[in-house]
């Protein structure tokens, strides 16, 4: 296929997706505000405290790491911005899934590959704060818990996969796996947090864990694949245009 033909088809498909997306977003908005994170006020106060306690050390470490990055490698500022922007875009994309409900990717795997999980806890936390304040999506009381699932657990998994597999298989595949599994684990952790707060009176933690997992898991699988693909796209683009910066960050496999 020629380049022009690919571009033409790409544009056509993008336009179709846009129309579908607008329709789905519109329909969803009439229903009730969609939030793939734990909703405001739905975690008992004790669990809010617990998850903030887990998140805060990561925020502190991430903030320090960002400061030292900016001082030692000023050229990494642009890529920090890119990692934040990528999460910003991806978590705004509520994509219809096979279960008849919508969810969104997280975009955190990309930044985790470049900068590690601590930095991502700050960038992801900012996105969650934006959505909690302006969109009533997620929440302030649940910000700690949502940071742990989306901006800490996901990035940790992405970082481990990247560190463990880079160089051992094709870079594209490693990036794909890191981002897709970071996306999936985010929702596994969300289900775990909800099950801890709401154990089933009969079947206990595992009973409600499986119930919450069912809600998120199937919906999230196609989205995790999408997130993996989109992360490979941005990573390829970066490799083609900013190979030097990737090298200084040690993110070139």
């Amino acid at each position: 296929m020629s380049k022009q033909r690919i571009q033409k088809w790409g544009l056509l498909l993008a336009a179709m997706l846009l129309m579908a997306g607008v329709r789905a977003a519109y329909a969803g908005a009439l229903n009730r505000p969609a939030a793939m994170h734990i909703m405001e006020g739905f975690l008992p106060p004790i669990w809010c405290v617990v998850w903030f306690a887990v998140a805060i050390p990561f925020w502190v470490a991430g903030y320090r790491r960002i400061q030292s990055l900016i001082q030692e490698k000023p050229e990494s500022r642009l890529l920090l911005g890119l990692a934040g922007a990528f999460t910003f875009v991806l978590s705004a994309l509520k994509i219809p899934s096979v279960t008849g409900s919508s969810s969104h990717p997280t975009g955190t795997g990309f930044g985790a590959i470049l900068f590690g999980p601590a930095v991502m806890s700050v960038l992801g936390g900012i996105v969650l704060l934006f959505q909690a304040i302006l969109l009533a999506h997620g929440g302030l009381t649940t910000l700690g818990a949502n940071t742990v699932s989306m901006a800490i657990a996901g990035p940790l998994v992405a970082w481990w996969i990247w560190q463990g597999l880079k160089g051992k298989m094709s870079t594209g595949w490693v990036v794909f796996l890191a981002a897709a599994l970071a996306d999936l684990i985010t929702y596994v952790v969300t289900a775990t947090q909800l099950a801890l707060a709401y154990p089933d009176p009969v079947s206990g933690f595992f009973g409600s864990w499986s119930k919450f997992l069912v809600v998120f898991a199937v919906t999230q699988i196609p989205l995790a694949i999408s997130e993996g693909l989109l992360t490979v796209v941005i990573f390829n683009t970066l490799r083609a245009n900013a190979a030097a910066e990737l090298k200084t960050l040690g993110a070139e496999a």
Partner: protein
Amino acid sequence: MTTDSRSSNPTAVNGLLIAGVILLAILGLVVGNILMPGTEFGGADGQAEEVITSIDPNAEPWFSPIWEPPGGETESLLFALQAGLGGGVAGYIIGLKRGQKKTE
């Protein structure tokens, strides 16, 4: 160093990957509508709320959002802003890098 996407044209590879994402979304719309005819593809959170209430019928949020968009239109404005801002920044950075590379 692997040569996977270097040996082939990266623009074409990216085009195919994006086409894959779009196809997955269309697949979601089609299969979702077959499994749940007439579904409006609401957020997975609504279902999570139902599960919470089924486990603990007395569960009630103890804190409400400090501000909520008054309706779907304002909400979609803010989501569009979020995506637009992020896309603009990402495009600027990649364009800048591309330009810098060309003038080197």
